[in-house]
């Protein structure tokens, strides 16, 4: 290398570039909570609020329109129960409070813990579907061969956009027994 190039100091650019690499690596991980927050604010991924909402006293029922809410259920992979809604769908006015029962039956001879996760489609309706009571707010312990009826009380916010006439609330019920008791080797390898 000639003298002329030996004099050039590369270290400041290299430092900046390495810092960019570190920042972008961190940014990749920062996107995880950012995405979560974004979804929470916009309902983008269809996940409804995890806490009970309180219907305001003076909430008006918008009788001028009716909305159909459909229910679908699925069990998580390998979860040993059947899980279904009592009714396939309800027709309701925004502002009206409805209760829908979900039925679960544990087919195992031992106690399990279940966690249901909701998802609303279209995603834009997520923010307007409010639950005052839901089995999905907490983990559901199921005794051996237990049959349970789990209620869900909800209403649609009267501010629901007019173009939404039909929406779907889906639940997946996962078996989280292993996660609670610590991830056991056998469970993770059995697939």
């Amino acid at each position, binding site marked *: 290398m000639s003298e002329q190039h030996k004099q*050039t100091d590369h270290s400041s650019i*290299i430092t900046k570039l390495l810092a960019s690499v570190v920042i972008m690596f961190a*940014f990749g991980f920062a996107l*995880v909570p950012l*995405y979560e927050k974004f979804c929470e604010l916009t309902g*983008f991924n269809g996940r409804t609020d995890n806490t009970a909402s309180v219907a305001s006293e003076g909430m008006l029922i918008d009788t001028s329109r009716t909305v159909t809410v459909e229910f679908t259920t699925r069990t*998580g992979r390998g979860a040993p129960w059947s899980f279904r809604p009592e009714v396939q769908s309800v027709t309701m006015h925004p502002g009206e409070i409805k209760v829908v029962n979900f039925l679960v039956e544990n087919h195992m001879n031992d106690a399990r813990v279940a966690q249901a996760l909701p998802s609303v489609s279209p995603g*834009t309706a997520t923010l307007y579907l409010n639950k005052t009571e839901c089995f999905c707010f907490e983990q559901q312990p199921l005794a051996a061969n237990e049959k349970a009826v789990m209620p869900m009380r909800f209403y649609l916010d009267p501010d629901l956009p007019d173009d939404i006439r039909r929406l779907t609330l889906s639940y*997946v019920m996962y078996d989280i027994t292993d*996660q609670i008791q610590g991830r056991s080797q056998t469970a993770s390898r059995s697939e």
Partner: protein
Amino acid sequence: MSTVVADSHDAHDEHHDHKPTGIKRWLFTTNHKDIGTLYLWFSFIMFFLGGSFALVIRMELFQPGMQVIDPHFFNQMTTMHGVIMVFGAVMPAFTGLANWMVPLMIGAPDMALPRMNNWSFWILPVAFLIMLSSMFVPGGGPAFGWTFYAPLSTTYSGDSTALFVFAMHIMGMSSIMGAINVIVTIMNMRAPGMTYMKMPLFVWTWFITAFLLIAVMPVLAGVVTMVLTDKFFGTSFFNAAGGGDPVLFQHLFWFFGHPEVYIMILPSFGIVSAIIPAFARKPLFGYASMVYATASIAGLSFLVWAHHMFTTGMPTFASLFFMYMTMLIAVPTGVKVFNWVSTMWRGAMTFETPMLFALAFVVLFTIGGLSGIMLAITPVDYQYHDTYFVVAHFHYVLVSGAVFSIMAAAYYWLPKWSGVMYDEALGKLHFWCSLVSVNILFFPMHFVGLAGMPRRYPDYALQFADINAIVSVGGFLFGFSQLIFLAVVLKCAMKKGEKAPAKPWEGAEGLEWTVPSPAPYHTFDTPPEVK
């Protein structure tokens, strides 16, 4: 080891062309030309390996029904074909070209960080040994596609996923080191008078590509790390049961993946912008607009990632945003195509092999670009998504785009690298065989795709049989045509051919043609003056 390097380094200053011999020359080399050669050979080997995996895929798809391999192995082949071609063939080929040509084009004696350069190459074969060895572990290699979507890679994958992740980390490190080297070289080592707006477009496009690499390779490293911890350490980044979201994987992956697409095409633009003026014997039309177009393509590439995910269900607003942004990319890309055509307008054109490949690039890349615009239209994408139409689209831009440009570059600069002219007759034969077979291979894929044949399956419905047979024939023709290319390169490497002058192309411009052919081991010890 350091003493060896230091000793040989001192020796360089005294004896101009002295270099260590044998394996040590290649293992310990810090010379940009040696490292460029290593990258190019590595990429060539990977190109044949990835290509042979593609032939296994085409062999299975020659007829409907299960013929040769089982579905799990088929999935491993599609995964490995993608990973090897993207990270093993195309990207290292570009890095090799950058190593060889960037210092020669800007009048620098070497890359700015020669020892890191050695590292960034030599960890690459290690990464691919790990990647390939993953196919021999119990349960088989990665079979989730090169996009390794969760939960395929987190829940439904084998133990080889750990090897996959580790290999991806090493490849990412290699790319990042290469990118840092290119940026520092271009910023600090330009010859006096070589202002930014006088740099050849190949240097410009690589400069921008290097920034893209630095921006997105760390995100890829993050995603593969999350896959690793989700799979083996019980985290739930992408696992809905644990509070994660599998769609998040796609967002993170395509935030890397879309700029990655441009990482694989921007240097091609630079190559074609060097070759077309040389053989049209006219300066490049619209140099400045080429630079700005490249920069705007790079900028836009960060705003279009979700066009890969229209069918995941997005609010209309988001769909429209990503659709319009994607279509907007057609504008700077169109500027480039028009500039190339205008460069040829009334030029005194001759059609040597590099020019033939560059012309084929312009036409075929544009076909791929237009099918890309079709895919950008959200409602239409619902029909095309995950069909062979997509496969046809990205092979047009990557094979008859990126790979053709790399071949054009190889023919264009082989006389400079080897000191002998390549065999023009063989080169033309290679071109025509490749051109015909690449279209037999990929054009009919549009039709089966539009008719609804999904990608990534080892079997298909009977009505697709005839077209798939044609596609497979095209695939084998294209694959074996590349042996002609190998013969051309080997002939040059063995110095069999006419002695090449310093500037073998009448209309070529640039500092690389001011040094003798083959380029001496050390060039531009005294920086040239650029007027």
